């Protein structure tokens, strides 16, 4: 194919995609504008059922009580994605060379603060915005910052302690679900009396798992980047 022909094709592709996307936008915007004025949301239903859920924050109640099955599967998805990453990643993780004084001192000040914030968010999730995902995200961010500042994942924790932390959230969810079923209820339908405790335990386990899974995903990406800089070392590694 000659160059002018390719240019024409590329221009045609750009024009065609713009046209198609404009049509999609028009359709979606029309659907949005023609929504009924009186929304039929689930806010009223959630508010009516909130007292028996064990959480005063409606979002937490939805995540861990009404739609607990969703959250269970979500942690399973996280774990599956990490397993897929483990099968594909390559290269070795080595500590960052010369992170710089600013990053190093900033990380040593910020990491404890982030730990406290994560603990607060986890605890506050019962009654205010917060919860396992936010706390896990902040914990993972603290870990990412520490790794970038030069400290690696401790070698003695990378065997079974890491794997226990990875599956803690999912196994806690499954254990609670099965225990509730054995007690004569439906899967993940908590008894109203112990719901607050169950939700707290589940959130703690989920926070640990989410934080470690997200951190390990980041470290896997970092490995691949490190292995690209010296290709000779990485080619023969599985």
């Amino acid at each position, binding site marked *: 194919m000659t160059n002018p022909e390719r240019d024409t094709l590329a221009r045609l592709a750009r024009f065609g995609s713009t046209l*198609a*996307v404009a049509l*999609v936008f028009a359709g979606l915007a029309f659907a949005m504008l023609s929504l009924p004025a009186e929304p039929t*949301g*689930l806010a009223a239903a959630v508010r009516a059922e909130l007292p028996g859920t064990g959480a005063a924050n409606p979002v937490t109640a939805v995540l861990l009580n009404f739609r607990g099955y969703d959250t269970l599967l979500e942690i399973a998805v996280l774990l599956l994605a990490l397993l*897929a990453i483990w099968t594909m990643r390559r290269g070795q993780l080595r500590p960052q060379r010369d992170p710089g004084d600013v990053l190093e001192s900033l990380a040593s000040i910020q990491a404890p603060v982030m730990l406290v914030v994560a603990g607060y968010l986890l605890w506050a999730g019962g009654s205010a915005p917060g919860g396992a995902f936010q706390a896990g995200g902040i914990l993972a961010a603290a870990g990412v910052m520490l790794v970038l500042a030069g400290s690696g994942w401790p070698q003695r924790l990378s065997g079974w302690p890491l794997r226990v932390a990875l599956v803690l959230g999912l196994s806690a969810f499954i254990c609670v679900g099965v225990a509730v079923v054995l007690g004569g209820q439906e899967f993940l339908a908590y008894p109203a009396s112990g719901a607050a405790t169950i939700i707290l335990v589940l959130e703690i386990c989920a926070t640990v798992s989410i934080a470690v899974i997200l951190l390990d995903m980041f470290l*896997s990406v970092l490995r*691949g980047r490190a292995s*690209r800089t010296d290709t000779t070392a990485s080619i023969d590694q599985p």
Partner: protein
Amino acid sequence: MLYSLAGIALFCIALRAVILATAPLRAILAVNVMSSGVFLVLVALARRTPGLVADPVPHAMVITGIVVAVSATAMAIVLTQRLRANVSAPTVEDTPGAGP
């Protein structure tokens, strides 16, 4: 309503980028922007309920969606790295002087 329209616009802009993307990283980033647009629409629609409190169900969906999007992004990036490592790894054919 303004926010949900902005979400749709974000989704569409990123959709065009996905269609036209040639580099894998560009496509991954564009899909991320698309998901941000979807989250913006969901949060904006959650606000339509009467009263002060927003509908918590879409909010819970967005939290779930963000975490899943992050994990999918990480997987896509590692897949891209692996692809690049496999493509750029020297093979017998590539070695100078090894050909007939």
